[in-house]
C-alpha cells in the first residue's frame, strides 16, 4: 500500500510535466475552431461551444496556402529522399569497406554536427545567390542533400547486421547494389523509416535557412507563413494563427503518432554509443 502511494506521487509529478508540455498543443487545436470573440470570452473551454471552420477558410483566402503547403512538402520530400540515399551509400562504405583515411573522414563528417549554422550561413547564402537560387525552393534544398546524422544512425544500424551475412553474399558474387537492395535495406528498414521521418519532420519545421533564402509569399514554407501572424499583443488574427499552427503541426504529429515507437528507438540509439 505504501509503495503504491509512493508511486502515485511520482505519477502525479510526471503527469504535471506532461500537461505543461501538451497543453499548448491542445489550446492551439481548440482555438483554431473558435471565433476570435469566442476565443477570448471562453478561453478555458477546450471543446469549442460553436465550432467554426472560419479561421481555416480565412487562411486559404488570405494566403496562397495550398501553394505554401506544397512548397513545404516538396522541400521536405526531396531533402528526405536525397539525405536517405546519400547517407545509406556513405554508411555502407563506412561499415563494409576498408580504405585509407576512413576513420578520419568519418570523424570529420560527424563533427560537422557540432558546427553552428552561423559559421556557414553567409557563404552558403552567397553561394545560393550566385547559383541564382535565391527566393527559390532549390536554394533551400541544395545545402541539405546529405546529413551527418543520417550517416551516423544508418551506420549504427548496419553494424548490427552480422558481417557473415554480407560475406555469404560476397561468396555468391552479389553486387553492391543488390547487397544494399536485397539484404541491407530489408534489415535496416526500421532505422531507415525513422531516420527518413526524422529528416522529413525536421525539414518540414525548418525555419532558419528558409527565412534567409525565401522572399516571396508564393515560395514560403509553413513556418515562414506562420511568422506573419505573430504579434506580441496577441493580435486580431490570433485564431487564424492557431489554424495555421494546427496545419503546420498536423503532418509531423500524424507521422509521429504512426511511427512513434520507431522514432523513439532511433533517437534513443543516437544518444547511446555516441
Amino acid at each position, binding site marked *: 500500500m505504501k509503495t503504491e502511494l509512493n508511486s502515485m506521487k511520482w505519477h502525479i509529478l510526471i503527469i504535471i510535466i506532461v500537461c505543461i508540455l501538451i497543453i499548448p498543443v491542445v489550446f492551439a487545436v481548440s482555438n483554431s475552431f473558435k471565433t476570435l470573440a469566442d476565443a477570448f470570452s471562453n478561453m478555458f473551454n477546450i471543446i469549442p461551444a460553436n465550432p467554426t471552420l472560419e479561421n481555416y477558410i480565412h487562411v486559404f483566402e488570405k494566403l496562397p496556402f495550398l501553394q505554401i503547403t506544397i512548397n513545404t512538402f516538396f522541400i521536405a520530400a526531396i531533402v528526405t529522399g536525397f539525405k536517405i540515399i546519400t547517407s545509406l551509400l556513405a554508411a555502407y562504405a563506412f561499415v563494409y569497406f576498408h580504405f585509407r583515411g576512413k576513420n578520419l573522414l568519418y570523424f570529420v563528417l560527424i563533427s560537422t554536427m557540432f558546427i553552428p549554422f552561423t559559421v556557414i550561413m553567409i557563404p552558403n547564402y552567397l553561394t545560393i545567390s550566385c547559383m541564382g537560387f535565391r527566393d527559390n525552393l532549390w536554394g533551400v534544398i541544395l545545402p541539405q542533400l546529405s546529413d551527418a546524422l543520417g550517416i551516423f544512425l544508418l551506420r549504427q544500424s548496419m553494424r548490427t547486421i552480422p558481417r557473415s*551475412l554480407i*560475406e*555469404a553474399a560476397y*561468396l*555468391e558474387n*552479389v553486387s553492391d547494389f543488390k547487397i544494399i537492395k536485397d539484404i541491407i535495406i*530489408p534489415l535496416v528498414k526500421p532505422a531507415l523509416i525513422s531516420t527518413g521521418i526524422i529528416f522529413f519532420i525536421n525539414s518540414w519545421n525548418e525555419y532558419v535557412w528558409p527565412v534567409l533564402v525565401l522572399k516571396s509569399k508564393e515560395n514560403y514554407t509553413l513556418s515562414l507563413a506562420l511568422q506573419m501572424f505573430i504579434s506580441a499583443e496577441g493580435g486580431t488574427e490570433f485564431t487564424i494563427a492557431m489554424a495555421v499552427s494546427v496545419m503546420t503541426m498536423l503532418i509531423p504529429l500524424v507521422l509521429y503518432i504512426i511511427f512513434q515507437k520507431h522514432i523513439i528507438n532511433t533517437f534513443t540509439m543516437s544518444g547511446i554509443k555516441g
Partner: protein
Amino acid sequence: MKDIIFDHVLKAYGKNVVVKGLNLNICEGERLVLLGPSGCGKSTTLRMIAGLENITDGQLYMDGRIVNDIPSGKRNVSMVFQNYALFPHMTVEDNISYGLKVQKVDPREIEERSKAAISMLDLNGLEKRKPKELSGGQRQRVALARALVKRSDYFLLDEPLSNLDAQLRVHSRKELVKIHEMYHQTFVYVTHDQVEAMTVGHRIALMYDGILQTIDTPSNVYNRPANVYAARFIGAPSTNILEANLNEGKLIMAGQHIVPPEVWIQKMKENGGDMFYFGIRPEHTKITTDYMDNALKGIVRYTEDYGNKVGVYFDINGKELISVCDNNVPATGEKVYFTPDYSKIHLFDYKTENSIGYPEDLSKHNYGVVYELRGRLAGDRS
C-alpha cells in the same frame, strides 16, 4: 585438380601476424580439418581460401592458379558460417536459392537443385518459414543446403556445429561426412573440437599461434604426435609431458628414474643429446598402490570420476601427472607406483620439441617390460 596450396602464406593485421608463413597442400576431394585453439589462425586460413581475408604475403593457389586477387564470388567456393549467416528476412527457400538467382541460373535448374537440397537435408515442409521460426539444427541444415545448391568445387565450413547441442552435433557430423561422400568436393573444415576433427577429417592440420604444427591422418595425429604441442592438444585428459634426462640407460624424470626398453634407448641415442621430453597419455599408464619395480613413485592429490573411468592426479616431486584407470582407484594421499606402456610412449627432442620417431617394433614392449628388466634393476639397486 581442385586442390588448394598455401605457399608461405602470411596474414597480418597491422603488426599482429596471425598466420605465419603457412605451407599447406589440400588435395582434391579430401576432407581436411583445421584444428586448433581459438586465435590460432585456423578461421583466418579458411577465410583466406574463401577470399574474405586478403593475403598479406605469399601465394594461395586453387585449381593451379594464384587466387590472391580473385574476389570471393569468383572462386567457386561455398561456405557454411559458424552462425549460419542466414538472411533473417528471407524464407528457407529464398535463402537457399538466393545465390543462384543472383547468378541468373535457369529457374528450372534452381527449382530442381533447391528441391534436391531440401529433401536431402530433410527440410521438407519448412520451405516457407523464416530462420527465426527454425530450431538450431534446422538452421544449420538450411545453411548447409544453401552451400550445397551452389555445387561448388570447394566446400568450406567454419565451426558449423559449434552452436548445436552435444547430441545434435554427433548426428550432424555423420550427416556432413555422408554428404561429402556423395559430392566429393574439396572439403575444408574448421573446428576447435578434437573429437569432431578425428571423426570428420581424412587429415587433420593442427595449428597453434599461426603456425601449422602437424598435418596427418587422425590416427597418426593421435598415436604418433609430431611434436610436444600436438601430443598435448589431442586427447583428454591431456598427455603427460616430463623433462627427461638420459643417463647410462636410465631416464631421469622429476628426480626419479625408470629404465626404458633397449629399443627406445637406441632411438634416443640416434637422435643425439641427453635431454628429451617424455610423453605418455593418461590412458596408457598403470598405477598401483602395491610396490612395483621400475616405476615412478608419487602421491595421489585428487581424483576425478568420469563415470566409466577415473582420472587420478598425482604428484611426483612437484610434477603433476594424470593417469586414467578403471579399477583399484587409489585414494587421495595414498602412495602410488606409476608405469607407462612403453609401446605407447612418445619422446621429443628437447630443443626442437619434435618427435624423435618411434622404434620399428614396439609390440613386445608394453607393461611386460617391467618383468623382463627385473634382473637388471635388481643389480642397479644394490
